[in-house]
Structures are given as C-alpha cells and as structure tokens.
C-alpha cells in the first residue's frame, strides 16, 4: 500500500524514524489505563498502535475515513476492556490485533464473530498459567517477530498478505503473479519454518 513512515529530524539534521517505545513502557501504559484510566498513557498507546491498526484496517480495502472511524472503535474497546487484558495470555500487540481483527470481520461480514467463550461450561479446562507467563508472552511475540524476519522474503510477504489483505488465495496468487499451488506451498513452508523456529509450540 506504499504508506510512508512518518519521519522526524534528528539533532544533526538527519532524518530518522521516530523513537519506538519499548515493550515495557507500553505494558506499563496499559496497566495505567486499566488501573486508573490514565489518559496520558492511553494517548501514548494510541499514538503507537493506532497508526498500525489504521494501516491494518486500510489493507482490508476500506477508505481513509472509514479506517479512522474503525480505529476509533478499536481503541474504544481497548479503553473499556482494559481491565480484561491479561498479559499472561498474549502480548499487548496481540490483544490489540485480535480486537482489530474482530472489528474488521464484523465490518466485512456485518455479523458478530463466533469467538470461543472462556466462560463456556462446555469449554475443556485450560492448563494453569505458570508464573512468568506475562514475560513469556511478550518474549514469544518477539521470537515470532525475528522468526518472520528470518523467513525468505517471499514467504514473509505471503504471510503478511494472508493476515492483512482481504483476498482469497486466488487473489493473493494474482497479486504476486504466482500459480495458486505456489502460494499454498509457500504458506505451508513458512508455517513449517515457524514451527521449527518456535520449537514446536504445540
């Protein structure tokens, strides 16, 4: 989609991307939002993740104004459900991703998504969460990130298209100028590599 990364000028005049908040700062901000409705912390979260959520939503084919509105919807859920964020279940980025994904599905489908319900009496019990799971969830996300960076670029591109673009496999094949079978086999290869890199997380 050729979106330009916003740039700021450094002290000696060179152009560099804005400072990226580290994961600890973002997690602390999230806690401040959950515990005391801290607007300053929420603004920082919105500034970092909002631009990414908007970019994600733009990939599903909605126009700029709609993507702005949907980003507002996503962060209003982030604000109101802040107390439900459990850092042991997954990274903060992952939690925001799932909210954005569900909002996007609602829009594409105009219906609600049949999410697994943790209060479901039929739900088979989960294994108890171990002590440092919160740290582990953020670390796992970082490991996955470097695993994606280590993939051959053509596999990583397909993975991104799979997650971001509202296209069928056929549509993805067209976009990349590849036969359908190649798209499927590259996705499978990427998946197999991720499993190996992640030490078979299953």
């Amino acid at each position, binding site marked *: 989609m050729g979106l330009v990364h916003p740039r700021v000028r450094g002290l000696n005049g060179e152009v560099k991307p804005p400072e990226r908040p580290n994961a600890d700062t973002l997690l602390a901000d999230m806690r401040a939002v959950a515990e005391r409705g801290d607007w300053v912390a929420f603004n920082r979260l919105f500034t970092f993740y909002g631009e*990414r959520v908007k970019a994600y939503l733009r990939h599903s084919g909605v126009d700029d104004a709609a993507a702005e509105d949907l980003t507002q919807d996503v962060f209003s859920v982030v604000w109101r459900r802040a107390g439900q964020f459990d850092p042991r279940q997954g990274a903060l980025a992952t939690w925001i991703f799932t909210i954005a994904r569900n909002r996007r599905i609602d829009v594409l489908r105009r219906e609600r998504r049949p999410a697994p319900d943790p209060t479901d009496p039929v739900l088979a019990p989960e294994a108890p969460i171990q002590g440092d799971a919160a740290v582990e969830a953020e670390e796992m*996300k970082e490991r996955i990130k470097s695993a994606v960076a280590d993939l051959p670029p053509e596999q990583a591109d397909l993975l991104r298209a799979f997650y971001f673009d509202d296209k069928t496999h056929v549509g993805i094949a067209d976009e990349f100028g590849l036969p359908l079978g190649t798209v499927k086999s590259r*996705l499978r290869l990427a998946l197999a590599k991720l499993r190996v890199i992640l030490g078979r*997380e*299953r």
Partner: protein
Amino acid sequence: MNPSTLDELLLAHAAGRLPLPVDLLVASHLTLRPESRPAHAVFEQLGGALLEEIDPEPLDPKAFERLRDRLDRETGPEEAPAPPVEPSAGAPALPAPLLAYVPEGIGGLRWRRYGRIAEAVLDLGSPGFTTRLVRAEPGAALFRHTHEGLEATLVLEGAYRDGTGRYGPGDIELADGAVDHRPTAEPDAPCLCLTVTSAPLRLTGRFLRFLNPFVRL
C-alpha cells in the same frame, strides 16, 4: 486430521480469514480441544508481531481528541453481555460459539429424518455454504456422498469412522471432492456432528444417484 491441515485452519482462524460457517466450526473445535489452543495462540501472536511491524499510517491529528470525546460520552461498560444460554435438559451441550446460533438448543431446530439419521440446517446467512447438524443413530451410516467443494465436519458427540479413520468429539475432518467416504457412527452411541459444505452434495448411492438432480440437501 493431518496436523498440518489443522494448523492451516487454526492459522486462517487466527488471521480472521475464514467464512462464518468454518469460523464457527473452528471456534467450536477450540472450545472442545484445549490441545489446539497453544498453536492457535502462537498464530494470534504472529498477528500481533506482524501488526507491530506494519508500515504505520498516520492518523488524523485530532484523532485522539475525538476518541476522548467519544469515551467521555460513552460511560459504563460497552455493552450488556449476552445472557447465558441455558442448554435444555437432557440435550447434548453445544459449545458456546455454536449455541449462539442455536439459541433454543438442538430441540428447537427443524429436524428432518432420512432413515436412521436426522439433519437440521442452520441459517447463518452465508451464501455458498450449507451448515447443518447431523445426528446419526448408533451404527448408522451418514449419507454416502461426494461433494464438489469443501466439506468440513466437526464431531460434537459420539464418534464415527470412515475410510480415513476414526473421528471423536472435537475432531475435524476436511474432505474435498476427491473423497468418496462413508462415515458410520460407532455402534455404541449416537453421533452428533456439525457439517459445513461449500457446494451441494452429490449423492453417489446406487438409488440415490438417480435423485441427485432433484434433491437439495
């Protein structure tokens, strides 16, 4: 089911790419099978990792102000949670993702009998897909059929076998047109399944083949 195929389904669910009926089937599988949740969690984490690395798109400079105004207006929790649906007594408990579409439980559906099996079509409003609950008596054969598109089956209760193996609660079988299978409920208990087909089934039984052009399953 082949573990790599299951992974692909879990990946597609985590990425939010599945059509509603298949989405529902995978969500129900995750409810019934905790061992699939770690892989699914990894695929959601992959979504989080990709989101952090996406090329950001600048927001309107007034976006945060607008959001704050909106949140100041909307006080209280976002929406009343849906009232829990009580499964009717004696009926098999359906996983919650499915129960949301069968609010009156399986007894409230319109069942049609075909010999020793019964079927109820669920209206999910998804064109191109047919979603049904199928209940087979112990030892009964589910329809013998082939299909042009995809057929996904999730076992909710009991178990069945076909030429490819045994499927018990929470198991998913994916079949495409290449598979001509004859699922049969195990002899000791009835078998309840959720099935999603992406094209009308083509009947292949000796007598049923004749009906094929006229029957819409």
